[in-house]
């Protein structure tokens, strides 16, 4: 098959249209740079989100032959490998906006506990930036996308002058807040990228709680509506749909010269030539592309003289503890949808007040599915059957407290994504192999998580739903992959500099979660947006200076 290329050399090509790629496109086009984006899918149609479809209508619609938007990529279409006895639960979205169509929207700033964490405990390399470097960008991102929150900053969770009003708490959240406080742990208002007021032309949330299906009005940040559509309006953006990026092309000077991609439907090979490449295909796919971009100059993948690309994969660990608040058992049932997900957050606290711990780093706690929700799986665990059982389910319904701690996993070289020797995908390109496991540090942290969650439940006098102690959620299920193309000051131990630019290849920037030096316990999207904005500001300056 003949390879197609237009022959034009673009100013910038961006791989991926999620948070990282969308921000890069928005920030470059508004500064007058012409951009081409490769999207592995297409724009999703909001009418296919099924946002306002009740749980019992879903099967009826499927039976009637109706289809919902195929947002999450089918693993059969693009498989990945895990070694025998290991697991990694990878969620990918190919299509405009990527995972921001259905993301959890929790928007927490990293603090210097995160950026300088490795300096404090000596495990692996520190970030090349500190909070002061990124805080102006957090301010700008908050103003651009709209994040709600409260005035309750701390050393582990810096605040913002630009928060939209926080939503009112649900009953169960008052109970959790009070119980945690009684044992010396403070909760805060959730910081979430949901519009509690109309913001920059986007409508406010109407509290239907169906965010996980995609928002029918765009009342929470998604890269397509908030970044890529405004970028189109500049006249500087072109997006190639169904373009599955395979490799970055290299010229004889060792610089990137474009991207090889395949049409998702026809499998036709194409090339887009460009002076600069921004990689934003999400952690695992970006890593796969970089490792597959081999050449005489870069035998183990572009920009990989350090051999760190693919290594240090860091996800997060989670456990789930549920119980029932006694004073809410049998109480009135509220519409607890709110802005979808919890309205409070429990920031990291294990470094304070002389607390002792036998592990590095920390965890924070989220509380989704507290209150009257559509997940009734707890009913399976209540004893008996018949009228008494039915009553027990009903009276507990408004009383659910759900505790979900998220913990940092420390970066380890052997937690590694590779492509060499992998089977080929439908385009003839090696697929990713993910070799990942947690270790003793994570297991110790999980024990502390479990004990702390039980302390909170006991303080609330809650009736606890039986849970298997030590049972961690599957690897990858937090959907927070980081670390496989990390930033750092030392080119021997990192792939990117402090501006997400490759140490080895000056005209390649990697701006998604793969660039994170550590995972932190926090949700990464806000930081991805801030880093991508900062990186592309630097990139635009370097272009003006004629350096790249």
């Amino acid at each position, binding site marked *: 098959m003949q390879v197609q290329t237009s022959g034009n050399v673009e100013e910038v090509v961006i791989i991926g249209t999620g948070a990282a790629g969308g921000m890069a496109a928005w920030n470059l086009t508004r500064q007058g740079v012409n951009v081409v984006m490769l999207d592995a899918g297409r724009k999703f149609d909001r009418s296919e989100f099924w946002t306002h479809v009740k749980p019992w209508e879903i099967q009826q619609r499927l039976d*009637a032959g109706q289809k919902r938007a195929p947002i999450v990529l089918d693993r059969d279409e693009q498989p990945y490998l895990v070694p025998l006895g290991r697991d990694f639960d990878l969620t990918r979205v190919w299509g405009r906006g990527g995972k921001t169509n259905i993301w959890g929207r929790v928007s927490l700033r990293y603090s210097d506990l995160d950026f300088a964490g490795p300096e404090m405990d000596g495990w692996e390399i520190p970030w090349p930036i500190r909070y002061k470097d990124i805080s102006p960008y957090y301010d700008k991102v908050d103003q651009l996308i709209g994040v709600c929150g409260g005035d309750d900053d701390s050393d582990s969770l810096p605040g913002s002058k630009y928060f939209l009003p926080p939503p009112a708490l649900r009953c169960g959240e*008052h109970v959790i807040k009070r119980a945690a406080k009684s044992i010396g742990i403070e909760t805060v208002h959730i910081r979430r990228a949901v519009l509690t007021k109309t913001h920059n032309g986007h409508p406010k949330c109407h509290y*239907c709680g169906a965010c996980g299906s995609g928002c029918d*009005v765009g009342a929470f940040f998604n890269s397509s509506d908030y970044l890529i559509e405004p970028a189109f309006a500049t006249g500087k953006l072109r997006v190639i749909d169904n373009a599955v990026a395979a490799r970055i092309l290299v010229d004889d000077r060792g610089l990137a010269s474009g991207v090889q991609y395949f049409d998702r439907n026809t499998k036709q090979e194409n090339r887009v030539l460009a002076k600069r490449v921004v990689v934003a295909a999400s952690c695992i796919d970006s890593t796969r592309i970089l490792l597959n971009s081999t050449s005489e100059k870069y035998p183990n993948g572009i920009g990989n003289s350090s051999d760190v690309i693919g290594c240090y994969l860091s996800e997060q660990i989670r456990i789930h503890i549920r119980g029932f608040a006694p004073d809410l058992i049998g109480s009135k049932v509220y519409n607890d949808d709110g802005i979808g997900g919890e309205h409070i957050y429990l920031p990291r606290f294990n470094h304070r007040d002389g607390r002792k711990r036998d592990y590095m780093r920390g965890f924070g706690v989220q509380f989704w599915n507290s209150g009257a929700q*559509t997940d009734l799986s707890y009913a399976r665990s209540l004893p008996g059957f018949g009228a008494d059982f039915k009553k027990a389910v*009903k009276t507990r319904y408004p009383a659910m407290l759900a505790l979900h701690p998220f913990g940092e996993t420390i970066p380890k070289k052997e937690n590694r994504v590779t492509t060499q020797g992998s089977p080929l995908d439908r385009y003839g390109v090696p697929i990713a192999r993910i070799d990942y496991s947690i270790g003793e540090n994570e297991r110790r942290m999980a024990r502390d998580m479990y004990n702390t969650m039980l302390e909170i439940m006991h303080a609330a006098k809650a009736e606890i739903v039986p849970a298997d102690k030590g049972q961690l959620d599957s690897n990858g299920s937090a959907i927070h992959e980081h670390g496989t193309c990390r930033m750092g000051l030392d080119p021997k131990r990192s792939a990117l500099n402090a501006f997400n630019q490759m140490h080895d290849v000056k005209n390649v920037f990697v701006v998604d979660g793969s660039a994170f030096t550590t995972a932190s316990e926090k949700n990464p999207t806000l930081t991805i947006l801030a880093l991508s904005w900062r990186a592309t500001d630097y990139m635009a300056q370097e272009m003006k200076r004629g350096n790249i």
Partner: protein
Amino acid sequence: MSTRRDALRILISATSVLPAAAATQQTKESAEQAGHLHQGPALKPSSPATPAFFQPEEFRTLEALSERIIPRTDTPGAKDAGVALLIDKALIARAPLAPQYRAGLADLNALAKQEFGKLFADLNEQQQIAVLTPLSLDGSTPLGEFFTLAKGMTVDAYYKTEVGLKVELGWHGNTFLSEFPGCDHPEHNA
């Protein structure tokens, strides 16, 4: 058939009623949100369904079993919610479980015959409870294991239906609200 009419009446009475002014305000605001879809595309009413996996006699046992797990009380039960048909459908999607389910129903009938000389569905309520109680207390026997499976699938099906989620539990979410009021218990907000 009175069952369906009863369920319908409870459905109507459970529908929340907004004060007129608030309703007008919500209609106005929702109309102003471009692209807001209160519903997906219209659904054609489906024809009365029949079990696709179970034989009629098995299905009768299944209906009796699920009704005993979640009986009709002052609110609708599993039969009112059509749980047996939903389990029949779920088993087609989860084929590996289907033979186990079928065998479990046969074993349940054998046990009912052994203890009371009749098929499970033909026992009275007290007899059915007497058959099921030991199974619910010990999930380690083959029939206990089947009971755990049957209870789980009954629960999953029932609380996903409009009858189970909305009528029985009082869920009234996934709707357009102008504001989110949150908890209004004075003791929580103190």
